[in-house]
């Protein structure tokens, strides 16, 4: 099949339904799946030749051993897709079901592999936890003397990525996808918040949908649309070694070896070995942009590769006499949280992204392409992809400096030990509460959510925690008792938790438009008296939670909406998407305007009543009410009788300039009630006890209120006046 429309160049169409930018394995997978779902007028544009970017060089390992279940699912699907692709297209894809071996050099790693195994079993993926001597049965080259065990994944495979790329393109072309090579996208045109056309170096094409699958170039492509799109990814050099065939050539079906403690992987390649790794000191590249030629001429760096070569020779000592063929430098793109970027961008309707594969492009391409195609077809994919949704990021993760620093941490983490509750160390202290310094000097230890620093717990003066590395454990952490004391104080006295990171919107209208909109979006009844607080979900068509929020009716036509921190972009775009274009209806993000203090505990009302001279008892201030009052010298503080934990207490929404004053007053008055600072770990513990579910973790877009015992927050007989 000839589909290279480059020589002689055929004219571009003037109109298309979908334009996909990027002819790597990801872009062709999207094209393939869209065409299979019945889409027509699909155009795929590639600036060079198909698969000339990362796809051309990547190692071609398809493994389901991924940290997230959704990722394992995508890899599992890719695996099945690549296997049948040869039959479907008649093109050899190099697919060999080799299986893979994840090795453990220590007990912690072995534990993490066992955890992976139990997750995979839930997904129906077969895998076996095996002993070292079984490893040498499966792969005689592997030195097993320093191993404690391994995980065998018999279903994993290897492919030739350029051939998979080619086969996907041929299959897509057979379904009518038009593919144009040597065609660069200069700009994506946007009108009224919708994609309208794409300007290329060979003319423009009108379109309804645009898919950015530009891999290494996705960030820059995002910047070059009329309304800029943030695609937070950054490239790092990635090296792998090719050897000449061994005297006794390696078998094509010998399993892939993944030695994460040695930071290397190795597969059989043309009778020799292909081996690369994820080093501790990655080399970020293309921070200041790039051109296409550079990726073809990357320099080898043997000195940089030395630790990985040594790890390989330690794992497979028999390779010492094996001859070198080449050291390949293949840049990969990485994202701030090592998950790929998928979905519709928050700012522009019809602008989709699938990029940032964190060097698992070949494993993910099939499944990710399928999910994205479903997303574009049905409005949402058939599985919960929130952990990969590009809307988990906003513009705040778009700084090149931030990305450069963060990916240097992310790349080594790919093979790092994934213990619970670890935090990124780079790109920190971006968003902070005005109380940050105060809390920090009182022993706060910090975590980061959506760029915002939040205290995890407070180390009491004189108490020394173990070094950071040692506190990374699968077992009881050293802060356990500290959090225990904070929880106890919340239950018996009173604690302050700075919850300023929460997303806060104000929805106002001249008439009843705000109420109408919220009644439509929220499952609960929002037509409550002024001053009432309503816990509610914003549900999608399937009844799943798109957002979990608390809405305060500030006045007849204005509402204060409080959502989880990482919902800032997603919730905004959800409301915006369903908001009528009415100049009298106004949505404002006021997250930065308020510091939120949570006073939790039975003595919270004593503290507040001393500061405001207002009775705070439940008779005068029942639960789920909001009053504007003065606290100390500061006036206009929104005090809400709720705590997000089920404990008695109050939320104080304080204009930021009063934050320090109110905090100081609360702390000094609170002394005699035993007040202390508490962190998010205490909050989590309290929430679990009362089953206050976490959106994104316990609730997602596939969970309905009925499934999580929240039907009491759904008003089934609500008058739906959005029809009127």
């Amino acid at each position, binding site marked *: 099949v000839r589909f290279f429309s480059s020589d002689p160049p055929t004219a571009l169409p003037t109109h298309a339904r979908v334009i996909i930018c990027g002819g790597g394995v990801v872009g062709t997978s999207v094209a393939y799946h869209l065409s299979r779902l019945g889409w027509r007028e699909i155009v795929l544009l590639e600036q060079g030749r198909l698969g000339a970017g990362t796809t051309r060089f990547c190692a071609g390992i398809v493994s389901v051993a991924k940290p997230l279940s959704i990722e394992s699912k995508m890899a599992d699907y890719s695996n099945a897709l690549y296997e049948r692709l040869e039959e479907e297209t008649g093109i050899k894809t190099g697919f060999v079901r080799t299986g893979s071996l994840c090795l453990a050099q220590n007990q912690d790693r072995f534990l993490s592999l066992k955890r992976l195994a139990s997750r995979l079993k839930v997904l129906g993926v077969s895998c076996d936890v095996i002993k070292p001597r079984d490893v040498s049965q499966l792969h005689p080259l592997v030195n097993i003397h320093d191993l404690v065990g391994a995980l065998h994944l018999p279903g994993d495979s290897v492919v030739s990525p350029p051939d998979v790329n080619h086969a996907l393109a041929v299959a897509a072309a057979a379904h009518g996808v038009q593919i144009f090579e040597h065609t660069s996208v200069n700009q994506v045109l946007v009108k009224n918040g919708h994609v309208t056309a794409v300007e290329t170096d060979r003319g423009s094409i009108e379109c309804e949908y645009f898919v950015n699958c530009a891999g290494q170039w996705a960030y820059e492509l995002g910047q070059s649309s009329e309304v800029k799109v943030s695609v937070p990814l950054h490239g790092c050099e990635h090296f792998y*070694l090719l*050897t000449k065939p061994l005297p006794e050539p390696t078998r094509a079906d010998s399993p892939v070896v993944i030695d994460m403690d040695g930071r290397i992987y190795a597969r059989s390649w043309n009778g020799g070995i292909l081996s690369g790794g994820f080093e501790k000191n990655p080399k970020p590249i293309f921070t200041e942009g790039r051109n296409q030629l550079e990726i073809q001429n990357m*320099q*080898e*760096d*043997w*000195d940089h*590769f*030395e630790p990985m*070569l*040594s790890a*390989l*020779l330690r794992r497979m000592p028999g*390779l*010492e*006499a*094996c*001859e*070198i063929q*080449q*050291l390949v430098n293949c840049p990969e793109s990485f994202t701030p949280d090592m998950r790929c970027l998928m979905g519709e961008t928050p700012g522009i309707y019809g602008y989709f992204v699938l990029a940032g594969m964190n060097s698992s492009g070949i494993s993910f391409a099939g499944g990710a392409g399928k999910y994205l195609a479903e997303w574009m077809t049905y409005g949402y994919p058939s599985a919960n992809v929130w952990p990969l949704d590009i809307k988990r990021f906003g513009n705040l993760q778009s700084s090149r400096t931030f990305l450069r620093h963060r990916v240097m941490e992310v790349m080594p983490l790919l093979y790092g030990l994934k213990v619970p509750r670890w935090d990124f160390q780079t790109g920190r202290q971006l968003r902070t509460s005005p109380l940050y310094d105060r809390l920090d000097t009182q022993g706060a230890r910090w975590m980061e959510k959506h760029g915002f620093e939040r205290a995890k717990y407070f180390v009491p003066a004189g108490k020394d925690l173990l070094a950071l590395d040692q506190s990374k454990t699968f077992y009881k952490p050293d802060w356990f008792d500290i959090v225990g004391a904070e929880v106890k104080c919340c239950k018996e006295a009173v604690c302050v938790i700075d919850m300023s990171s929460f997303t806060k919107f104000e929805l106002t209208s001249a008439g009843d438009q705000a109420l109408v909109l919220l009644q439509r979006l929220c499952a609960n009844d929002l037509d409550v008296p002024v001053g009432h607080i309503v816990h509610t979900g914003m549900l999608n068509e399937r009844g799943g939670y798109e957002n979990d929020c608390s809405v305060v009716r500030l006045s007849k036509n204005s509402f204060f909406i409080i959502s989880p921190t990482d919902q800032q972009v997603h919730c905004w775009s959800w409301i915006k998407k369903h908001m009528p274009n009415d100049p009298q209806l106004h949505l404002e993000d006021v997250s930065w305007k308020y510091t939120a203090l949570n006073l939790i505990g039975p003595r919270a009302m004593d503290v507040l009543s001393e500061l405001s001279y207002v009775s705070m008892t439940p008779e005068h201030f029942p639960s789920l009410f909001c009053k504007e009052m003065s606290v100390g010298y500061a006036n206009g503080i929104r005090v809400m009788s709720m705590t997000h934990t089920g404990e008695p207490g109050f939320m104080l929404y304080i204009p930021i300039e009063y934050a320090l004053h109110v905090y100081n007053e609360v702390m000094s008055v609170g002394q005699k009630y035993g007040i202390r600072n508490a962190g998010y770990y205490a909050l989590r513990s309290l929430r679990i006890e009362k089953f206050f579910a976490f959106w994104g973790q316990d609730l997602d877009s596939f969970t309905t209120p009925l499934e999580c015992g929240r039907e009491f927050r759904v008003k089934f007989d609500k008058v739906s006046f959005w029809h009127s």
Partner: protein
Amino acid sequence: SPARHTYYLTPPQVNSILKANEYNFKVPEFDGKNLSSIMGFDSNQLPANAPIEDRRSAATCLQTRGMLYGVFDGHAGCACAQALSERLFYYIAVSLLPHETLTELENAVENGRPVHPILQWHKHPNDYFSKEASQLYFSSLRTYWQELLDLSVPGEQPDVAEALVSAFKRLDNDMSLEAQVGDPNAFLHYWMLRVAFSGATACVAHIDGNELHIANTGDGRAILGVQEPDGSFSALTLSNDHNAQNESEVQRVRSEHPLSEAKTVVKQDRLLGLLMPFRAFGDVKFKWSIELQRRVLESGPDQLHENEHAKFIPPNYHTPPYLTAAPEVTRHRLRPQDRFLVLGSDGLWETLHRQEVVRIVGEHLTGVHQQQPVSVGGFKVTLGQMQGLLQERKARISSTFEDQNAATHLIRHAVGSNEFGLVDHERLSKTLSLPEELARMYRDDITIIIVQFNPHVIGGQ
């Protein structure tokens, strides 16, 4: 076969030996800016003799601007080098003082007022000053500045080159006279004689802004590290060795004596067949007449009679003096590409080529390695061979980071480099664990001072 027990020093033991004498000084900054042309200096010594016969000095001139650095390589004992390390910079500093300051100084001493310090020393704790001789040293110095006061004219600035020559010659002369005159204190008297009968070379740098002067007497050497536009370093030699390898120096020595002595005055590449350096302080055996030597020895303390070295008169000794302490002075105007100055005793230069010295120091100071990237090209290379090569290269870089002090790093290379120019721990360990009596046969004392320049200040002037 019998088991062979090889004793090796561990890397920490090696480090503690190498770092025992290291010293570092950073020129203080004001308002975050270093306005001096000098950023600071690193120095270190590694003994081969026991005790070490090399000495080093570094000081800031407080009454004039500028800094002084000196490396002194003693022979026939350490006495002369020790005296130089304590005294020479005072002689130089005083020679540099204008008439007005000398007047002030003399008036203060005369009237028992406190004297403004002339030098601020930058000394390692092992760099000692003798307390007993200080009074004697001071009175000789005062006599010198009184003469300078008579010779100088108000409003005139002393010329640096002239001052250096004058200070060198004067101090050597003073040491000679002090030995002849003697001292009522028997200990001091014997000390004076030991200073005069032993010898030392001196390689001194005076740096004031962009003006660099080197005054060299003997076979120490001063090399400038120049950074080329491509980032590599090249060596610019600022001093001449005064020994038999220097043809013009041989000519000079021969020209100062009758033709009849032409064959004996330089013999077997040594002065009178005995002395390696052709210029030196002390060594009165090559300077005094035979009569003077006999007279001083006879009147000297008893210990001297047991000193075979002092009693020995060189053969073919007809027309003394054969030796001078007069230095050869080189002036250099610092340029932005001049990054550092290395002063070293011959123990350094006989183990490492000057180009290699400059490369090692340059890479250490800039943290940049001029290692060519490895490329397999079309060659047959096995994984094992590649690993060996890469690990050697890594060791080379990591040894750089092991040493905070550039002089220590240079010593590590001087003592431990293998045929590939890489520091080989085994070799380093072997060399350093040689017993004292053997060490001298394999290497000489090494003394190094590395002065780092401030290119921003130099470029800005």
